[in-house]
């Protein structure tokens, strides 16, 4: 049951992070297409936002790893 929770948790994290980063990528490419001369600034902002999402996702992933490892012992 605990392993199931860890696996499901990891899956939901991947879902959420993928969704979030997908939206960032979508709006970034749209903005670059609309205004190609601002590509550098947009890329910087995109990376920064993606990194924050990644941070939250990784904290969730670490919780899942700790859960699974704790059960394994």
């Amino acid at each position, binding site marked *: 049951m605990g392993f199931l929770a860890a696996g499901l948790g990891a899956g939901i994290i991947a879902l959420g992070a993928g969704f979030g980063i997908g939206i960032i990528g979508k709006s970034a490419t749209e903005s670059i297409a609309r205004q190609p001369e601002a590509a550098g600034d947009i890329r*910087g902002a995109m*990376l*920064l936002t993606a*990194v*924050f999402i*990644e*941070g*939250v996702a*990784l*904290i969730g*992933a*670490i919780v899942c790893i700790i859960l699974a*490892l704790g059960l394994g012992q």
Partner: protein
Amino acid sequence: MRRLSVTILLLFAINPGLLAADTEESSGGSFDIMGKVLDHDYVEVVGVKLYLPRILLVDGEWYFYANTKSALESGEFMQTEESGLVRSDGAQIALDMSITSHLIYVWLGIILTLLITIWAASRYRRGIGAESEPKGAMHNIFEVIFVFIRDDIAKEFITPEKYRRYVPYLFSVFMAIMFMNLFGLLPWAASATADLTVTATLAGITFIITQFSATKDHWRHVFAFPGVPGWSRAILTPVEILGLFTKPFALAIRLFANMLSGKIMIVSILGLIFIFTDMFGAYVGVGSSVFWVLLTAALYFLKALVALIQAYVFTLLSAVFIGMAAEEHHHEEDDTAVAHAQSVEV
């Protein structure tokens, strides 16, 4: 496409004699995935284990040993199941200052960074690069990285009057993390940044620098947020104080988890070969290995990329946090302050 893959499968499964010999060796043995990423008391160099010194503090007394084995042989220490090494009379180790494999790789990363910066500095002092153009591939790469950190990270996120003070730290932390990350790609080495203590130390340095470079405005924003009704400060102040600590925490976890997951992923995917061999027999196992090996090769490139990106991200976020603290606000735009606060809380 399917026929092609079947042909490849057959191509890699034509030597039954070799197969039998391979599986005999691999079956039965277990492989410790976490052992590949955890800290050890030895460094592996080309398959040979070099044991490292143990420095232990028990009951206010220091013990020095050349390695774990000599500590056990001296009779002062014994190995236990539940708590590892303890003194023979049962006293726990109060402080373990032993030199471990991850520490060695941290040192290697720092030494490499030092050597490269000292080498480049001596060249600039002689006028190469300062008066003329930089010469040689190494020098050019150095200058590209340095200018990138200075212009695209420091200047961009820290106020223009102050950014020069932080460029040395940002550059050295970038180089050191990059080297530590890239060590993980070497066959026997480990990436030290796949250890939470290493990344927490690095994030701690950023935290300390952030606090010492914080302006009066920054502290005012933390303890008494301007431009909001008094009662809402009861919520805002704890959140802001919490925010001070979650920033370095997220910084440490991010680097740690990224480096850890890369290694575990590669080992797990290679492990699929043996799992398949166990489940479906040697032919399927070895036949499918071509996919796993190709996937691992692709992951290796991804890992090299992630090593660079994570070093960049750590430096970038350090610069952002320092810049946020060192920023001096002008309080004409008090009504935009709330919007600003929402964008800062991540």
